[in-house]
């Protein structure tokens, strides 16, 4: 007998795909978890929620928000109800992302060498040459294994009929993977036995796979190459993630000031003198990486690192210049890239996108602005965007002027009604909009994606914006093993 009836109060919007509910009944993948949750009283669920909060706080899984000169530690809100993905859905996503990454890597290789895709007119050269992240410095040299995107965090959403769409390709320094790992650890603590009983596939291999890949990129073929994770420092909002990954992989966490380039090799300054560095997993943006070549006032980078990179004395992960591939104006052409380089049909769909630099498309967007979301082409994290459905006339007017001043920097997409999933809030289950960011790793042997990812939640009722900077939270993301293979998770 269920103690509480969680489902009674659960309301799903019309015209929205709900991950748990279909036509007033629970989807199969959710049944076991919901049965279990229904055995718990609201008090017990509240206790679990409290425990989760305490665990995040005491482990320092926080980011710092600066307010009136004082740093305040916040936790990235965590919802205790997992998001569940079936084996079939996952298989589709996995194939789609692998295909996309294969094409994106080929595109980067091409754009920084022969530029066949421009010469064949598949992508207008204007779009590439006007992209601020197109780095001419990346021409005329090869990167190890021709891999540019070693780590990606591609964002997926689902629309009203459940179709998956690619929302954004994050190919530079995608963050959030530590939350995938930590959310899982928290679930283990608050819901003992629930994971094995549901045949949930493990995500713990992520740091091992990444480490193995990093070793393989080492230019020096030595037994124990020196691998470092370069962080902007403790004030960066993702610092927790940087230190977690460094610890899980057992690599050195360094800041720009720890490194120096001598005779085109990178060294770190140790208590025993200089030690050569072979692979740098950097979480510092291109622009700040080498003050000699890019932003001369940057304190975060290392002068001369690019010359060491060019000489092949150090591997940098991800490669520089990837921003030309995840630019939101270039995004439109990814399906074309897949056809061009792989002669395949894209598995995962793009959201239709309007280029505001083109007058007709701009007019169309402006006259349908209440159904549109307008975004800056080179920003991410939900910064600088306009939701036409929620903006005031004044905001729309100002934004239009901004667009007209620099139309190349904006694209628009029809607002997609993201799928919803149950969240435990105020003592009951409530539907909130979500997205999904799986983390894919490219190594010499191909692309690997740990079965899982980060599910971000728009915690405000009715909101479609899941970014943490805009009041989003996250959930543990379960990928179930194939049917009939219960208990045999990788």
């Amino acid at each position, binding site marked *: 007998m269920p103690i509480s009836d969680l489902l009674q109060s659960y309301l799903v919007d019309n015209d929205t795909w709900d991950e748990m509910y279909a036509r007033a009944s629970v989807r199969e993948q959710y049944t076991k978890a919901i049965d279990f949750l229904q055995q718990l009283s609201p008090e017990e669920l509240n206790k679990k929620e409290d425990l989760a909060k305490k665990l995040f706080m005491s*482990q320092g899984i926080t980011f710092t928000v600066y307010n009136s000169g004082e740093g305040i530690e916040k936790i990235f809100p965590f919802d205790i109800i997992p998001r569940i993905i079936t084996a079939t859905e996952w298989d589709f996503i996995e194939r789609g992302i692998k295909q996309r990454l294969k094409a994106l890597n080929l595109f980067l290789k091409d754009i920084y060498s022969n530029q066949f895709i421009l010469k064949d007119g598949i992508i207008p050269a204007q779009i590439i040459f006007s992209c601020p992240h197109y780095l001419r410095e990346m021409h005329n040299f090869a990167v190890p294994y021709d891999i540019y995107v070693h780590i990606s965090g591609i964002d997926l959403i689902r629309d009203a009929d459940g179709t998956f769409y690619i929302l954004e390709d994050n190919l530079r320094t995608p963050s959030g993977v530590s939350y995938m790992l930590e959310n899982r650890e928290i679930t283990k603590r608050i819901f003992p036995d629930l994971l094995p009983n549901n045949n949930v596939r493990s995500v713990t291999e992520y740091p091992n796979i990444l480490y193995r890949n990093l070793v393989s990129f080492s230019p020096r073929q030595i037994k124990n190459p020196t691998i470092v994770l370069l962080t902007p420092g403790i004030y960066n909002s993702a610092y927790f993630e940087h230190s977690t990954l*460094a610890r899980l992989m057992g690599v050195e966490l360094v800041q720009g000031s*720890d490194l120096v380039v001598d005779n085109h090799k990178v060294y770190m300054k140790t208590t*025993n003198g200089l030690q050569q560095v072979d692979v740098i997993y950097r979480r510092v943006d291109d622009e700040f990486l080498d003050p000699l070549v890019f932003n001369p006032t940057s304190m975060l980078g290392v002068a001369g690192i690019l010359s060491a990179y060019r000489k092949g004395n150090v591997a940098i992960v991800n490669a520089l210049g990837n921003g030309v591939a995840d630019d939101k104006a270039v995004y439109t052409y990814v399906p074309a890239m897949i056809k061009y380089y792989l002669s395949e049909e894209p598995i995962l769909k793009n959201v239709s996108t309007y280029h505001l630099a083109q007058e007709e498309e701009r007019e169309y967007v402006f006259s349908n602005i209440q159904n549109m979301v307008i975004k800056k082409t080179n920003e991410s994290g939900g910064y600088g965007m306009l939701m036409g459905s929620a903006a005031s006339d004044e905001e729309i007017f100002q934004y239009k002027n901004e667009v007209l001043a620099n139309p190349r920097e904006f694209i628009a997409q029809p607002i997609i009604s993201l799928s919803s999933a149950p969240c435990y809030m105020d003592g009951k289950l409530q539907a909130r909009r979500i997205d999904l960011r799986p983390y894919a790793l490219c190594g010499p042997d191909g692309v690997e994606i740990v079965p899982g990812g980060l599910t971000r939640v728009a915690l405000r009722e009715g909101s479609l914006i899941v970014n943490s900077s805009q009041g989003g939270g996250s959930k543990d993301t379960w990928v179930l093993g194939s049917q009939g293979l219960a208990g045999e998770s990788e």
Partner: protein
Amino acid sequence: MLSRVADSLYWMSRYMERADGILRMLKINYAWSQDDIQEFSWKPVLRIFTSLNPEEINGFSLNTRDVLQYMVTGKENSNSVLNIVTLARENARSVQDHITKEMWQCLNDFYHTMRDDNLAVALQKDDPITVLDILIRQGLIYVGTTDVTMARGEGNSFLNIGKFLERAIQSSDILNVKISGLGADDNHADAAYWKYLLLSISGYELYLKTYRGGFEIKNVVEQVVLSDQFPRSVIYSVNHLHRHFERLKTDHSNEGFDNLNFTIGKLKSRIKFSTSSSIIHEGLKKYLTEIRFCLVETGMSLNKNYFA
């Protein structure tokens, strides 16, 4: 080990040692303030543990609760326990992958305790000893956790070097401020003065057991500078500093190591071959100033040879 990491470990440890020293000093001085309203003054505490100059100290409210607020939770005081623990935690944060998760969690807890609004209120309204005890215990959990979990490698050496250097400087400063104002044979200060001085560095019971004939300046100097039984004495701290420093020696010769080893060795012999009489004879103030100079020099040399 990265130079920056060594530097952060060293400072994290120095800050934690300083926080402990301040908290103990405050606890005992608070007790004294309740005991003897005539003799007692907060001035020496402010002199030892803040960067205020004598003029500012004279202008400072010596109201007990105000001093406690300033010393414990005062945001404007760069040496308040709150600021010191915050600094220790920031250092820990930047070397999270070089300390154990337990150590980090324990510093993190300490930090959140310090920031709790209720703490400041309790310090104003309730029994300050209870508040200070909670904080002292947080520090002790850190010390214990470090001892039990931290690997005995290079990182541990830098932690201990920081701890014992800070402790040696503190003990010589406390002695300097509290005693050197008195004349060479001035044994007239009353028993309470000595008692609280020794209590504040947790050396009262040891003194009673060692010297049975009441308080004498000579004996106090002997215990605080020269006793190798007393864990807060200058010589005890310097010996341990040296022991942990020697572990940094590596196969390939390092000029920096040799220089520093010489500096610390010299300081050690200077103290070892002193007696309480010789110290008082040559002048306590001069002696302590010289020791302090050598300790600061050691710190600067570490900076140059290991942390740069």
